[in-house]
């Protein structure tokens, strides 16, 4: 059952990104371009997602466990460390260069364009590099093991 709910959630998420036009990098870039011809649409995407997810999370996390699972896997790592800061800054630069963040990179695979090929390939390489580096560093591994990954 868990597999079906994961599939359905994934489909709905991919559909949501497409309907919101977050899969269009130019749309994303025009949201980030606050001093140019600014398009506030993506602020509304985030606001409406939060409007649903804030009360939903509050209600769901008051339950003792998820419907099909024995516990909630919520990050408990609390430290605001250099890794979080540096990672978020690097991600922001990468996002601003192309208008592509991970959700749209994966969702657009089906379109099979050259842009998606290069974006997905390099995104995967970057991810695997840090996962393997984390395996080598005890402190990073510890942070990950207490579910520091979102």
């Amino acid at each position, binding site marked *: 059952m868990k597999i079906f709910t994961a599939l359905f959630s994934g489909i709905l998420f991919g559909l949501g990104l497409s309907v919101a*036009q977050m899969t269009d990098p130019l749309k994303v870039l025009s949201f980030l371009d606050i001093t140019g011809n600014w398009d506030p649409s993506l602020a509304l995407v985030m606001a409406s997602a939060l409007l649903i997810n804030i009360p939903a999370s509050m209600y769901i996390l008051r339950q003792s466990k998820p419907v099909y699972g024995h516990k909630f896997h919520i990050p408990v790592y609390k430290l605001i460390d250099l890794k979080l800061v540096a990672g978020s800054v690097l991600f922001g630069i990468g996002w601003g260069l192309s208008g592509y963040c991970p959700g749209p990179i994966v969702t657009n695979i089906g379109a099979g364009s050259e*842009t998606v090929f290069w974006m997905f390939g390099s995104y995967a390489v970057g991810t695997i590099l840090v996962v393997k580096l984390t395996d080598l560093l005890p402190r990073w591994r510890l942070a990950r093991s207490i579910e520091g990954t979102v």
Partner: protein
Amino acid sequence: MENFTPISALAGGTMLGLATALLLWSNGRVAGISGIFSGLFVHGRSDWAWRAVFLIGLVIGGLIHQSMLPPEVTLDIDVVKPDVALLVVSGLLVGVGVTLGAGCTSGHGICGLSRFSPRSIVATILFMITAMLTVFIVAL
């Protein structure tokens, strides 16, 4: 602001909120795309099946949307002029950044903010500001 599309933004955002709530309610999992993806490569984890299925779902969702569009509408998923070097640099920065920072627009920006997580608030402010600054500098 003539390119403002509030209706599709609200409709899409609502679907993202519902998809995220569903995954937490049913599976007890955070719908952060970068975390779901990077978890596939962590040695010794046996929970790859739901991760792979969720990511395949994303692709199916994109294809369903594509199939619903009238044939004369072409999908805008490419940057105007695909510049391979720029795409590779961008993809590497995104991959390294979200994995180091343990989250992206969905994991920190939707899931983390919904729980008022201080780490996610800091991360979201940082990647929003640096992305806007990057766009500003590139446009100069």
